[in-house]
């Protein structure tokens, strides 16, 4: 991976911070490694986070490829999750093979719809997609919290969580991935995530549409001249971004908990930005960088018990430092490995 140096710089800087509060960085790093790969349960949880991060990483990266910035993956994945829970609650008696199909379609179409709005606004009204997606994240947070607290709360629980969807909607009886990681939330959506990454790779490399999308993202004037509608490509990129983000919601609702738990996503949408950035938007690289970010996220969760002064919030510092490290590396690349073109 091109950005591995940036990753190392970021990781090192973050670990050096632990010196300030009197911890041994090697010890902290050891805890993170042990806690993310130590047992099959730990590894399962790491893979569960990896799954969600592959989806959001793909979501951010396809928008990037189309020349757009999707920071709305968070809203897209939570609306998709909410949509599925509401659907399963409204139609509890759909027979089994159809139920899977229905809920899958519902989840992905809600994701696509939530993703396509900023694409349409950008294409037809020139509204800046960053602000629109950011605002839509907050709107999604408001809508989901309204439904979870006021409309479909779980009657058996005091926590802010929705009702549990029926077994006929959940994929667990066919879930062979989960058998390898007993009791952990790792599930068959991991395979779907990896498959999506390969599909996207194929889409970029072998299809005309994929080529057009990348070309429109690279230079929309040139692509307009070549007869590619950049409006169409923007809308397509955002729709696919929403589709991928919805996978993250499915991973939680259909693959694991069967309900919408408020805060189930520790900002997967934003970590997805780091994942996409680290892989330089290469779909196959995303699998690896999602795994790295997933293990750092899982690894940090045990810092609460294993150290006196560091909490699980350390994962945010790690992620941020890695993004900054990658940013710094891009600067180094530009400065030392490319000819000066006189723009600076």
């Amino acid at each position, binding site marked *: 991976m091109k950005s591995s140096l940036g990753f190392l710089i970021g990781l090192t800087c973050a670990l050096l911070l632990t010196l300030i*509060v009197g911890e041994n960085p090697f010890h902290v790093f050891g805890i993170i490694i042990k806690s993310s790969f130590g047992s099959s349960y730990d590894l399962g949880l790491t893979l569960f986070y990896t799954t969600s991060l592959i989806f959001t990483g793909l979501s951010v990266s396809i928008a990037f490829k189309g020349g757009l910035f999707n920071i709305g993956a968070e809203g897209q994945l939570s609306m998709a999750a909410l949509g599925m829970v509401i659907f399963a609650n409204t139609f509890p008696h759909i027979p089994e093979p159809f139920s899977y199909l229905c809920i899958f379609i519902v989840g992905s179409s809600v994701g696509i719809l939530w993703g396509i709005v900023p694409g349409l606004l950008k294409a037809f009204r020139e*509204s800046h997609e960053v602000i629109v997606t950011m605002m839509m994240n907050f709107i999604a947070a408001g809508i989901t919290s309204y439904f979870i607290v006021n409309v479909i709360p779980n009657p058996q629980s005091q926590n802010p969580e929705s009702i549990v969807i029926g077994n006929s909607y959940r994929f667990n009886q066919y879930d062979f991935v989960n058998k390898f990681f007993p009791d952990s939330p790792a599930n068959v959506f991991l395979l779907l995530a990896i498959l999506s990454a390969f599909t996207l790779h194929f889409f970029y490399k072998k299809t005309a549409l994929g080529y057009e999308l990348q070309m429109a993202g690279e230079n929309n004037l040139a692509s307009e001249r070549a007869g590619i509608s950049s409006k169409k490509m923007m809308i397509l990129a955002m729709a696919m971004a929403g589709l991928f983000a919805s996978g993250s919601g499915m991973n939680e609702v259909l693959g694991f908990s069967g309900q919408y738990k408020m805060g189930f996503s520790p900002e997967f949408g*934003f970590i997805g930005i780091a994942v996409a950035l680290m892989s330089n938007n290469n779909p196959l690289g995303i699998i690896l960088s999602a795994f790295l970010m997933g293990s750092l996220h899982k690894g940090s969760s045990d810092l609460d018990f294993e150290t006196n002064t560091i909490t699980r919030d350390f994962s945010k*510092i790690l992620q941020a430092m890695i993004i*900054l490290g990658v940013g710094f590396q891009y600067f180094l690349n530009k400065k030392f490995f490319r000819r000066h073109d006189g723009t600076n």
Partner: protein
Amino acid sequence: MELTNFLSFSFLISALRVSVPLVFAAQAGLLSERSGVVQIALEGFMLVGAFSGAVFGFHFNSALVGFLFAFLFGSAFSLLFSLFTIKFKSDQIVIGTAFNLLIAGLIPFISKYLYNSTGSTPSLPMEVRFIFEPLIFSVVMVILVHFGLTRWRSGYWIQFAGEHPETLLSAGVSVDKVRWVSLFLCGGIASLGGASLSLFLSSNYSPLMTGGRGFIALSAVILGKWKPVPTYLACLLFGALDALQIRLQGVEVLGSKIPVQWIQILPYLLTIIILAGLFGKSRAPTFLGKK
């Protein structure tokens, strides 16, 4: 409860009060965006201000000292932000997101070290807290930014950095330097917004107390079409919505309760409607986000 109760004097006062953090943050965001740097790290800068203001305000037993330190820490963070966005030419949105994450992680990290808890900081005594002062400061800030941008030479530089950097360049002024200064001020002023949360609207820092106000402030900048006074008015509008939402909790209007969430999403919805150009075109600085 009658609807007219909401239009009382006390409602206006509370709307003014809760809009103070927004006013600071929005003017800060405006300075950054007018100089051509997309600013989505306002939320992070506000958190820095809220935390450092509360810590130093408590330590020195003075709200004013807390305010001062908030400015210092906020601007220090924005220097780091400038290093990445201006010097390293990294993507402004990516770095903004990273800063929001970084600060959300650093505060519990430091708080755990200082107070052995990731929760709230100790409360300031009642007599030390601000009573009304930030309200005055914030209005002064709006006036300063307005006259600064329209009357002062350095204000023109900021505008040119966002609109026609090449003109500035041919006048022999460094665009990067102008942006460094705008961002320095932006971080400091946004932190004052955060500090007025912890020193004026409440008496301590509690986790994630900004609650998305940094993003609402950004909406106010857009709603105010990147101009100081309209941005101020937008902040007052969002402040009023916030005050309304507090009053509406548990109140029945026309026989049913209005869910708090519907009012909470209004500023965001309004921003999207504005951006969609339904109320006429609002134009961002031409060079916003370009390097």
